[in-house]
């Protein structure tokens, strides 16, 4: 037993680094109130984790008796998650909203690392026990962070709504897990797959369980109809946390969901020889369920976003819509589709965090997240205006920005799988999304500043931060070869013949 644990620990260095950083920051918080120090300590932990992920040998394996899979797929998502966390930690150092809260800064930074840990575990979870635990670790830390500025009424309210929705979703998921366990006698998804493959399982019970488990995933990736918490939490939580939830926790949810569907329900022996697409056990097409979620998410997210005036809320609905686009990639149930989702996450990381960073800057400087605060921004602060323009165009998916590459690969995967109807819906949705993104552009450039709308400059770190997000957003739109190759090389899921 001990040799196995030691062996597994070698694969577990990234998570260990995060755990150590978490403990260190908590302890440091007992002796210092310096938010910069604890912030930097947390960042060091995340950077160390990133380092350990990147130096891991490109071999697929599992750790801790098949609890965690360590494979190309999980490494890719861990990099996305950790990069997003790191960038958000940088935001947090600058955020005025957080500065105003004197108490508990060490806890804030510690929770960020704990959140990163939970999400990394989600990316690798290959046992339903681990899935549940990782999901809960992520969720519970998110509840706390969403309510972190608890003196603000909306923050506490957001946290409460989040807890209720999150707990219900995870309860449903747990019930689904218990049914799957009852059907197959296993929690480990590889054994579940074998048991299902033997064909002694009541299909309808399995479908019920699968749908209950999908509720858990749907909540985490904020897919319609499990999205109700999203706008409230995104609006109420501190901007930094909203940004993190919109990218990293969505990535973790997708990673867990893709692994679960890929391993549990796919016919691993017979499937995928001819077309590259996965065959499903028992003949139930899970991708049809996902397709419904995808279409609902895109359409509802985009349509409701049209009416929003609060930028955080608008971006919340936009993130629901983006979850829909990404779900389209999963619907193809093919390596092409999964790699498209992975590509999308990398570009989404930069463009969405960029948009949230601009929201944070404007909120810090004008005290408002409303659309009206953006009137005349193009004249008041041209650099922010141009940066926001590029982020928004990228979110719409207009070349030569990175967002176009993301959409291109999602659409390509669908057309490759001959799912023309879905791809048309996706394309039309991106036209709808243009309308509300352009509303922001309109306010920034076509409207004159309100009287008293101060001209504001940017400090050097702020410019550097914007450039850090802006450059990849443009560069990946013009030269995406390495990203695509890396993503396509990383679709390997442990135990799955490609």
């Amino acid at each position, binding site marked *: 037993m001990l040799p196995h644990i030691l062996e597994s620990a070698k694969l577990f260095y990234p998570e260990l680094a995060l755990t150590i950083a978490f403990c260190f920051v908590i302890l440091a918080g007992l002796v210092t109130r310096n938010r910069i120090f604890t912030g930097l300590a947390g960042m060091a932990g995340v950077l160390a984790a990133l380092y350990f992920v990147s130096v891991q040998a490109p071999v697929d394996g599992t750790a801790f008796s098949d609890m965690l899979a360590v494979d190309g797929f999980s490494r890719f998502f861990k990099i996305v998650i950790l990069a997003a966390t790191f960038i958000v930690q940088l935001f947090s150092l600058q955020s005025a909203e957080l500065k105003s809260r004197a108490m508990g800064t060490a806890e804030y930074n510690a929770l960020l690392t704990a959140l990163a840990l939970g999400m990394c575990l989600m990316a690798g979870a290959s046992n339903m026990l681990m899935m549940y*635990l990782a999901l809960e670790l992520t969720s*519970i830390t998110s509840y706390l962070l969403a309510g972190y500025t608890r003196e603000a*009424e909306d923050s506490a*309210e957001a946290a409460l709504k989040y807890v209720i929705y999150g*707990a*219900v979703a995870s*309860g449903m998921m747990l019930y689904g897990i218990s049914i799957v366990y*009852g059907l197959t006698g296993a929690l480990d998804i590889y054994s579940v797959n074998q048991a299902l493959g033997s064909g002694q399982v009541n299909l309808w019970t399995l479908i019920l369980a699968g749908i209950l488990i999908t509720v858990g995933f749907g909540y985490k990736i904020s897919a319609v109809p499990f999205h109700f918490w999203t706008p409230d939490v995104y609006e109420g939580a501190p901007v930094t946390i909203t940004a993190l939830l919109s990218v990293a926790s969505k990535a973790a949810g997708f990673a867990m969901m893709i692994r679960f569907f890929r391993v549990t329900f796919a016919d691993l022996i017979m499937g995928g020889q001819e077309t590259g697409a996965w065959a499903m056990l028992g003949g139930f097409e899970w991708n049809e369920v996902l397709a419904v979620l995808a279409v609902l998410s895109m359409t509802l997210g985009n349509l409701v976003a049209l009416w929003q005036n609060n930028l955080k809320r608008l971006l919340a609905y936009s993130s629901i819509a983006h979850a829909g686009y990404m779900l389209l990639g999963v619907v193809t149930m093919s390596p092409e589709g999964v790699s498209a989702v992975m590509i999308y996450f990398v570009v989404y990381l930069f463009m969405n965090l960029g948009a949230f960073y601009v929201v944070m800057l404007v909120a810090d400087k004008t005290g408002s997240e409303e659309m009206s605060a953006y009137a005349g921004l193009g004249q008041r602060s041209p650099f922010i205006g141009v940066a926001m323009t590029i982020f928004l165009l990228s979110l719409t998916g207009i070349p030569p920005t990175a967002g176009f590459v993301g959409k291109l690969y999602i659409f390509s995967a669908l057309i490759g799988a001959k799912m023309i109807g879905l791809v048309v819906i996706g394309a039309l949705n991106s036209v709808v999304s243009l309308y509300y993104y352009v509303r922001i552009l309109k306010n920034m450039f076509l409207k004159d500043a309100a009287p008293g709308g101060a001209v504001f400059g940017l400090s050097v770190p702020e410019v550097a931060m914007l450039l850090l997000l802006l450059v990849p957003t443009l560069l990946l739109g013009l030269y995406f070869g390495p990203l695509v190759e890396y993503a396509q090389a990383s679709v390997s899921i442990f135990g799955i013949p490609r």
Partner: protein
Amino acid sequence: MHLPVPIEYYLALSAIMFITGVTGVLARRNAIVIFMSIELMLNSANLALVAFSTRMGNDAGQILVFFVMAVAAAEAAIGLAIVIALFRNRETVFVNDMNILKW
């Protein structure tokens, strides 16, 4: 292993508890009661897991139950802490009154 009570009884009870929990979440407006309903949902899953585990002579389910109990406690603690934070601001525990954020 042989159960003195047929497994269907356990499962039926578990299903009833689960549905009661879901209904409670949907129908009740008091945040505390909602949390109690959520506990009911989690415990219904626990009951099913234990029943299955015993029936199949497989420990995995019972191990999961211990984790679920710990997590449920953590979740309840956080939930109640947030309710208290909100109560200090608002003097209410009814989710109907929480309407700063809406569509």
